């Protein structure tokens, strides 16, 4: 599904503080895989996920999405990728604080141009999956961390993406909520979506089928 060929990412290229964040990354991701990306802080996990998420472009190397080079995609096409094919979950939730749960989850569908009437059932369905249906009309700022992250996951899967990318999704959660969120990821994975989780947490790493260990911008180990 995804293939990375010799991907390099250099921050502040050409300046004094030039920094090689990713060096010669080669990687395959297949449909239905559950992958953990681990490594020390600063190893390049987030950088890798940003590139996978079409949030950022590599400086060299080729990112293939079903054999199509993403490097050729326009900004607009990249945006549509994020909207339709890739679900993104991050540590600090990235939810609009003064929108309700419903409005937040609805946002990707609005951007995709779905009609209001067509949205409702789907939103109810994903809110049911993450167990947030009774909070639909709550503002985000009234929720707990676990509830926020479940809302974020609902939003990530609302447009039925092929892959969900999660950067430290449990970093801000306690152990009970961590368990609940991990269960959601496992359920998603079982329903056929690929899941990639960047994490420090060895417990989470253990629950993934494939582990990518990173160090100083390189993949050290692949298991």
């Amino acid at each position, binding site marked *: 599904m995804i293939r990375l060929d010799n991907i390099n990412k250099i921050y502040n290229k050409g300046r004094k503080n030039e920094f090689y964040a990713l060096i010669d990354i080669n990687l395959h991701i297949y449909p239905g895989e559950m992958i953990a990306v681990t490594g020390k802080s600063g190893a390049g996990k987030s950088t890798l996920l940003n590139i996978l*998420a079409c949030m950022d472009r590599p400086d060299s190397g080729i990112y293939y999405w079903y054999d199509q080079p993403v490097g050729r995609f326009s900004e607009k096409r990249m945006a549509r990728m994020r909207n339709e094919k890739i679900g993104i979950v991050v540590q600090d939730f990235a939810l609009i604080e003064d929108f309700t749960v419903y409005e937040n989850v609805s946002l990707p569908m609005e*951007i995709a141009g779905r009609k209001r009437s067509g949205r409702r059932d789907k939103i109810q369905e994903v809110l049911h999956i993450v167990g947030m249906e009774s909070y639909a009309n709550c503002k985000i700022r009234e929720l707990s961390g676990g509830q926020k992250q479940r809302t974020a996951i609902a939003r990530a899967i609302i447009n039925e993406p092929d892959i969900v990318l999660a950067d430290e999704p449990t970093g801000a959660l306690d152990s009970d909520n961590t368990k609940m969120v991990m269960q959601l990821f496992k359920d998603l994975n079982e329903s056929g979506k690929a899941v990639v989780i960047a994490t420090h947490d060895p417990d989470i790493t253990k629950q993934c089928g494939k582990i990518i260990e990173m160090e100083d911008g390189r993949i050290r180990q692949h298991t």
Partner: protein
Amino acid sequence: MYMRLALREIKRSRKLFLFLILQLCVTFLAAIGCASVVSGQYWRYDAFKSIIGKEGWFVNTNLGLRIPEADAGTGRSGREILEKYLPDANIICTYSIFGDIFMDDAVLDIDSTVYDPELIDIMGAETEIAEGRWFAKNDGREIEAVISQNYYGLTEGDVVNLVAYAGEESIPIRIVGVLKEDSTVIKMNYSSDMVGYHNFLYNLQGDPGTQFLILQEEDFSRLAAANPQLKEILWPQGLLFIQYPDRISDEEKAGYDNFIADNLEIRLKETLETVDQKSKRYIKRQLNDIVPVLLVFCIMIVMSTVCVSVIEVRQHITNLSIYRIVGMSRKSCFLIQLCINIIILCLTMAVTAIAFIVMQRLGKDMIIWNTGILQTAVCAFIAVVWMILVFVVQYKVMNKHELWRMNI
């Protein structure tokens, strides 16, 4: 959708936006004021342009004229004598009346002045009427007059009588309008900076003890057919503009100049060219006093609104980058920001318009704010400059790479 999201952002940081709108509003009002002063001065100058924009002389005849044949008994008005000696010149002036104004049987202590039509027209656009109307086309048998606020209680519709010193017949004068207290009339107005168009305008408020009666020369010449005395009792006094014809030979000109130098007993005399130049200089000085201050003021506020808008964009850049995560392109995010700016501008215009109307209602008499093409143009210019400036700055801020990453 962009509009909706933009509106929500505005609602979210409404305090900041309120501040921004107020700042911009002040800028607009200052600009409108500035433009009003400019256009107001220019407009007054422009009104006199047809009089002073020619070759000839301005003569201040406040003490009256002493010209050949001026002694009584010639049966001629002063104007006709001038026209006889300056046959090709065009004369525009104010007149005093050889006669008294009576109300019932009492003589009024009133400053009555008769104006040539050109001056009546200029004054008509300048003065403000409290009751009744300004002069209109009159072909009746009555002489019309406009009076200032007066302690005789004379008002619209009242009739006073004019009796010439040399006659007994009383000529009715109907008052058609009453001036506002602070009206501006045409009358010599001495100032240190002589002589420009501003010296011809006189605000009644500066002289509250005096009452003015304004009459038009037209009425006198129309009725003079039946009553020749009417023309003879008018005598040029006050402002006298002698316009030379466009094509005047040097010889003729020298003759005219000599006549004026030798025969008019004059307190103040200036060529029209000098008056025009001094008028222009006067406008320029007025503008030099006020425009730079207002300009700096406007620039400073615009700058500060630009700074505020940077703070503002920082406040919702988080949300913009969330929109990007869920599938908007960066361009769309900029578009939301653009919508925000446009809404702000529209709100500002609405607030400015309201503030403008309120101020006009409250401070009717002292208001220098006016609407007009110049004002609109200046505001539009500021709006465009602001839009561009703010968007460029915001674009720079928003283009910072780190703001668009997943972990924000």
